[in-house]
């Protein structure tokens, strides 16, 4: 599903200097598996996630996801590809505050268009039921708890039946119970064949994944014993 070969990513810094966020990263992720990207703050976790989801493009190396070479794609093609293949879950939910939960999902479907129009309402109801917030469908994000918002964000990420879901610290802003519920949800998704990539610095959450990619200073490393 995901193939990284000698991937490096460099950000421009001030005064003509640069900052290496990732250096020579190589790994494979099989379809239908769950992976935790784990590391300290500043280790390159979010950068790696951005490259997997096509939110950014690597400055060196090859990134192939769902059979596509992301480095060769234009911003426009990346957007189209992402809509069809990837669902993104953010730490701060990033639900659109002026749309209801149902409308947030509907908007994602309108953008991509893979779900036929007559099936959209049914799919929204099904997704909301699956994440357990079907009674909140007509509420605005501000009217939901943090856990409910994140579940709505997960439902939105699944709206277009993506083969890959990437989540950046999805439980970072949630209480323990809500965090557990979200991770259970990810487990169910994996069982249904969705590839899950989660960025976390939480050891317990990382341990629930099939595999952990540990990062330290932008490089893949063996997982250290101590928690970051």
């Amino acid at each position, binding site marked *: 599903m995901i193939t990284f070969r000698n991937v490096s990513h460099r950000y421009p810094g001030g005064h003509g200097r640069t900052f290496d966020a990732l250096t020579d990263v190589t790994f494979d992720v099989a379809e239908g598996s769950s992976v935790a990207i784990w590391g300290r703050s500043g280790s390159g976790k979010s950068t790696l996630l*951005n490259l997997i989801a096509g939110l950014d493009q690597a400055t060196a190396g090859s990134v192939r996801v769902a059979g596509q070479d992301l480095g060769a794609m234009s911003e426009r093609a990346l957007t189209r590809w992402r809509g069809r293949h990837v669902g993104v879950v*953010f730490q701060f939910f990033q639900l659109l505050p002026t749309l209801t939960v149902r409308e947030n999902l509907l908007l994602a479907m309108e953008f991509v268009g893979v779900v036929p129009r007559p099936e959209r309402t049914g799919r929204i109801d099904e997704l909301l039921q699956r994440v357990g917030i079907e009674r909140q469908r007509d509420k605005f994000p501000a009217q939901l708890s943090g856990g409910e918002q994140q579940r709505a964000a997960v439902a939105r990420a699944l709206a277009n039946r993506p083969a890959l879901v990437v989540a950046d610290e999805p439980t970072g802003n949630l209480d323990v119970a809500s965090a557990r519920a979200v991770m259970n949800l990810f487990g169910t998704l994996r069982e249904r064949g969705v590839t899950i990539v989660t960025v976390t610095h939480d050891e317990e959450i990382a341990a629930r994944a099939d595999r952990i990619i540990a990062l330290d200073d932008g490089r893949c490393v063996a997982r250290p014993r101590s928690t970051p």
Partner: protein
Amino acid sequence: MCRQAEVDPVSMSLVKALADLRAQGLRAVLSWVAIAVGTTAVMAAFGAHAVLDREIARSFEDSRPPAVVVWTDAVDADLLRRVASLPGVAGAEARRQVRARAEVGDGTWRSVLIYAIRDFDDMRVSKVHALDGSAPPSVGSALVEQSAVSVLGTERGATLALRIATQREKRSLVVSGWAHDPAQAPGWQDDVAYLYVTPATLSALGLTPQLDQLHIDVAGDDNAVAPLAREIQRTLRAANRPVHRVEVPVRRHPHADHMEAMLGLIRVLAVLSLLLSALLAASLFGALLARQTREVGIMKAIGGSPGAIARSSLWLALILSGTAAFTGVGVGILAGQRFARFAARELNLYDVALTVPGGVIAAVFGAGIAVPVAASAWPILRASRINVREALTDPGLRGEKPASVGAATRRRGALVTLSLRHALRSRARFALNVTSLALGGAMLMTAANVHRSLVAAVDASVAPRTDRIELRLLEPAPTTALVTAAASVKGVRRAVPWGAVRAGIALPDDTSAPPVVGHVAVLGPPEGSLPKTTRLVEGRWPVASSQAETVSLAVNRQLLATVSDLHLGAPVNLVVGGRATPATIVAVVEEVGIASAYVAPAGMAHLLGRDDVSGALRLELHDEASSVAVAARLESVLARENWFPHDLVTRASLRAAMRDHFRILLVVLLTLAGAAIAVGVLGLATTMSINVIARRREMGVLKSMGATAGHIRRLVLLEGAVATTASVLFALALSFPLSAAVRAVVGAHGLHVTLPREHAIEAVGAWLVLAGLCTVGACLGPARDAVRRPVRELIGYA
């Protein structure tokens, strides 16, 4: 012991404000430009107003207009000295006026007033300025008033062919230079030329060289004028000098009404500009500061007090508004001076000092700073009082419940719903944006509406007339002979005689010969009924019987505005040829034109002492296109019969002259429209751009959900369209009361008629197109930048 360095809280606030300014980037630049343009408009309007208000008064007073004019036989040095030495007399001057016609080519003639001046180097009253050091003109030559050069189409050294009122043979005068007479309305407006000569030139023209008018300036206020006029009459009679007429002219510029209307319009422009700038500033600062809420949370979390937080935001507002106001004031002064220079030329003002008073500059500069700072006070206060948790998690929509949209909108899809809810998400900001945008549109529509009303009023005063040439004679002529002669002119289908005479107006007092305080064209329509070009607004149309001792008059509003103390029912004396006839105002009418009064045929006969003469003719032609040629032929016939025209105008030139009279008002209206477009469009562009720029993070989220560039373009354009459509509708609604108010100002002062209500639909269309284009440009520019950036950058954008 180690001592910590103390940090001045003010300087830290300033440092933070400067850093914020850099971080705001394009948003700060756009806000700065909007405030600068708003201040420019306000400064230009108030500056031009201050300059013109001062210079109109100064220019007229510099000419030392006479308070009393006395007609006698000849004013010599001895008489002048004697009158000048009377107590209360501030200055006395001798003058003579001769009426003539000047040929301007192809048999076309124009009215000319020749003024003989006693001494060009020592004018004490009714001063005329010789330009280019060309005074005094040599014998046989004349100076031409600068505003009348276009009337004659002449140049220095050219020879003018003249017909003088009292003479049969043609005369000539050489144009030796230019003069400026601040007391005269621009010659091009009245289609009359003013020439200035020495008494010796009068002889060269076959006239007696005597100057027959005494122009007297009076020390003290207007109450001193009437007693002094009587004292001067006694002095002249004691010196065995005849007194043919005494006039106490109204001491106002001939076009003071137009100036008042123009200044009124500029005041409207200034106030609207101020309001627009304030709204723009409030809108922009609201948007700028809304972005800083999370930072406020951070500052509070590290111990920042509300005062310290407010200080840094205030510094930001002060830096932006201070520099923008400084620039706006500078540019506004230049723009105001440029407009004042143009207006001065239109009003025939001379040597205009363009210095804008320091007080006005200081006030506008102060307002330019205070208004944006005051506008930002509420968002600053709100931001500084927010609690830390709320601020840190602020999604930019705190406390705002998303607007409800109809089911019809929801059926159109989530993107349309999102656009509408976004556009309306902050009702206060939406209202502020729409109002500020609407104000610009309303100003444009108002300017266009009133412009159209003015033109319609002029057209209405000309369109119902079937005649194509109007002739007014200096002295009435036998009706039968006049009509026969005119009807014999090739191209004339019908000649309709009108009673017409120019009369002095004297208000009855306790003396046998009250002074003349104004002049009026008295007209007697042949049918004895109200002309179609006038509207009766008070009283009844005069139907005087031939036995009546008093003439019944219908007067127009122009006359009421020129001579004070005239009103419905007021008694007046009409002075024609030195003979005073009592009259009563029985009606007030509205029309576009000069100060006029109407009488029934019997009233005209009473006024003239006979009923077989006419002072005017209206000619219907076989072919309107031939009117200029027919007018030239008629002029020859009049010369042959020794009838001297006071005015001879074609319908086209009459219409042009009427519109020329209001050109300055039309220009002010168009300037108002231009300013509205500039400020309104810039405000629209700035507001829209800031709204889009402020939402880059959201665009990143949308892109992460699969939104393409097309989706994002549709989203921002739909949002822009909501604000733009609302602003156009609001502008349309605002334009009705605004147009009514401006019509009232212009109608009351400029024209003295009730202007018809007109709606310039094309202005609504123009604003719609402009606003639409502007919305597209302002939204798509920043949106295009956003869609090109990787999602990671947009998500990380603060």
